[in-house]
């Protein structure tokens, strides 16, 4: 197995799926000759040509609208929207059409497209490049919102997303693109959409996170064990929507305590839905109020102050100590 960054792992997924299936088409701004501004699509145009790797005009809504047409025809377009901060320009095509064509045509048409886009902060980027707005997508029925947390699951999830019969919003943490490497097998590997994973087992506290927040959450879990002997169970959601609650509900039935971490703003964020599911399905097992460690309900500051915005190990530990009281 080769050690890969998330960028390389995503590239492997695209390259192999394009090789296997000529329905897979990559399109977006600078995805061809330039290989994408983060190089996720590097080399694809050399292998598959301009016919399957389309450098499009600069129009996010046009990219997604065209992809919807391709998908209705029976192709499997994978769009890259250069930064999630620009994807609001195509929000309307996802909300009005991608999410609805299956229902609106009573199953005659489906929209098996993927919208890949880098989200989140941590790379000292320009304005409009650092926010985490997965809740927008998660609120729309008919689409799926997937957020990998490392190279290996990013590769496996992207393969699943490309093969999925429904539209998938695929959020890639730009902070994770080159943050670390993992062993990624050359042979095919998929990670199922809609199935969270337990990535660290424990009996005292359930910590739920995803995407870039997995690393500080896992660091906090390790510290809890080292310093306090607390055994935290850590769950990586991987898919924000459709949100499968079985694993985290089962975990909280065991631990009685829960803490949720996300980079997205606090109010109406995924944490609110997770906490409510726990209220509905594990209320009588809860030993303490559910804790949330999240971004604040503000526009993310420019990069000199952005670290103060993100949940980090220390904030997670403080919240964990509250959740462990009583």
């Amino acid at each position, binding site marked *: 197995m080769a050690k890969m960054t998330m960028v390389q792992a995503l590239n492997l997924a695209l390259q192999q799926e394009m090789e296997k299936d000529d329905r897979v088409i990559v399109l977006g701004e600078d995805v061809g000759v330039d290989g994408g501004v983060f190089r996720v699509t590097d080399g694809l145009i050399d292998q598959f040509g301009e016919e399957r790797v389309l450098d499009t005009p600069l*129009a996010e809504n*046009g990219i997604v609208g065209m992809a*919807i047409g*391709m998908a209705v025809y029976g192709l499997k377009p994978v769009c890259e929207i250069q930064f999630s901060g620009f994807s609001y320009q195509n929000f309307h095509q996802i909300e009005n059409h991608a999410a609805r064509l*299956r229902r609106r*045509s009573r199953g*005659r048409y489906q929209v098996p497209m993927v919208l890949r886009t880098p989200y989140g902060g941590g790379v000292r980027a320009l304005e409009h490049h650092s926010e985490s707005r997965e809740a927008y997508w998660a609120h729309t029925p008919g689409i799926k919102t997937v957020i990998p947390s490392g190279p290996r699951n990013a590769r496996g999830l992207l393969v699943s997303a490309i093969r999925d019969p*429904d539209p998938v919003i695929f959020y890639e943490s730009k902070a994770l693109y080159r943050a670390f490497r993992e062993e990624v097998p050359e042979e095919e590997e998929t990670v199922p959409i809609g199935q969270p994973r337990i990535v660290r087992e424990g009996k005292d506290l359930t910590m739920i996170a995803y995407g870039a927040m997995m690393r500080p959450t896992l660091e906090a879990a390790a510290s809890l064990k080292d310093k306090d002997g607390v055994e935290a169970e850590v769950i990586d959601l991987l898919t924000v929507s*459709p949100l499968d609650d079985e694993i985290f509900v089962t975990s909280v039935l065991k631990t009685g305590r829960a803490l949720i971490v996300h980079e997205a703003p606090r109010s109406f964020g995924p944490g609110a839905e997770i906490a409510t599911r726990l209220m509905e399905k594990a209320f009588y097992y809860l030993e303490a109020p559910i804790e949330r460690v999240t971004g604040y309900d503000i526009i993310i500051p420019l990069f000199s102050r952005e670290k103060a915005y993100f949940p980090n190990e220390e904030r997670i530990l403080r919240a964990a100590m509250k959740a462990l009281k009583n």
Partner: protein
Amino acid sequence: MPRNAIDIPEKIEYLSILNEKGELDTSLEPDIPEELLLKLHRSIILGRKFDERLLNLQRQGRIGTFAPTSGQEAAHLGAVALLRPSDWLVPAFRETAAEVWRGRSLESVIIYFNGYDEGAEIPQDLNNLPISVPVGSQIPHAVGLGWAARYRQTDDVAMTFFGDGATSEGDFHEGLNFAAVFQAPVIFVCQNNHWAISNPVAKQTRSKTLAQKALAYGMPGIQVDGNDVLAVYAAAKEAVERARAGHGPTLIECVTYRMTVHTTADDPKRYRTEEEVEQWHKRDPIVRYQKYLLDKSLLSEDKIADIESEVLEEIQAAVDGAEEKMKALGDPIDMFEHAYARMPTYLKEQKEAFAEEVAEMTEVKNSG
């Protein structure tokens, strides 16, 4: 240093073949087989009569809000008549006769406008997209469909419809630009009916024509008399042939008029005069086309009367059929279907909870 005019080779033509009295410009008469001429005529009559019946059903409370098409039948039928079954129709919401031409049943139109999703069902053998209510938003889909058809090495094309208001939308600009850049086989048909609800086309754009917008994207554009089915057909024929041959997209502006309301929730007296509407009644596409067919001896007054009564019978059968079918469509549990290819767990839970609740709630249960 020079300051010269840039020579832009394209120009915009206006095409009219039947004048307002229905008199033919023989030098421009398109070669249309008799059978097709008569099919077009019957479809225009059907479109008009069906529209009138829908309006009547709406006023009686037997269907909900819909967007009438009266006056615009030639503009969409003349274009869609060029399509093969394997081509793609990407409609807005004022092309009902075109959808019916392509095989959509009248029953399904009634069922849809009476608020049942079943009316939107598209049979497997029809390459029609459902109507698109957000204005102009369907335009880029035609580009993707056309592009895909060419990627699959067919000579199928995509034809999309929209109104004058849609040309102000980003989707219009992006769709036409993408189609031109990728030379996608798409025919963009603008039904310029002069009014986007209350906003006249002069407040929509400062352009002299909508057709000229094509030039900025590097594609041919043509303005036609949209109430002249022969002109629409002739322009669409050129556009479809060009697209099939791999020479890219075309914008056709059909100058027409919405003879009635925007939707049944609209009152046009608030923004336009009776005189204006009256002027356009004189340019009714049906009257002109019938005169042409009478002059060619393809029709007689008796034959027209027969067609009208046949069409009315067909419509009555559709109304009866739809009302019969709708009796079986009351179950609200259907609303949970077709959300995803496989229903997620939490949605199954919601559906089960709903089923339990609805069993005890007479009001919801009988909502159909």
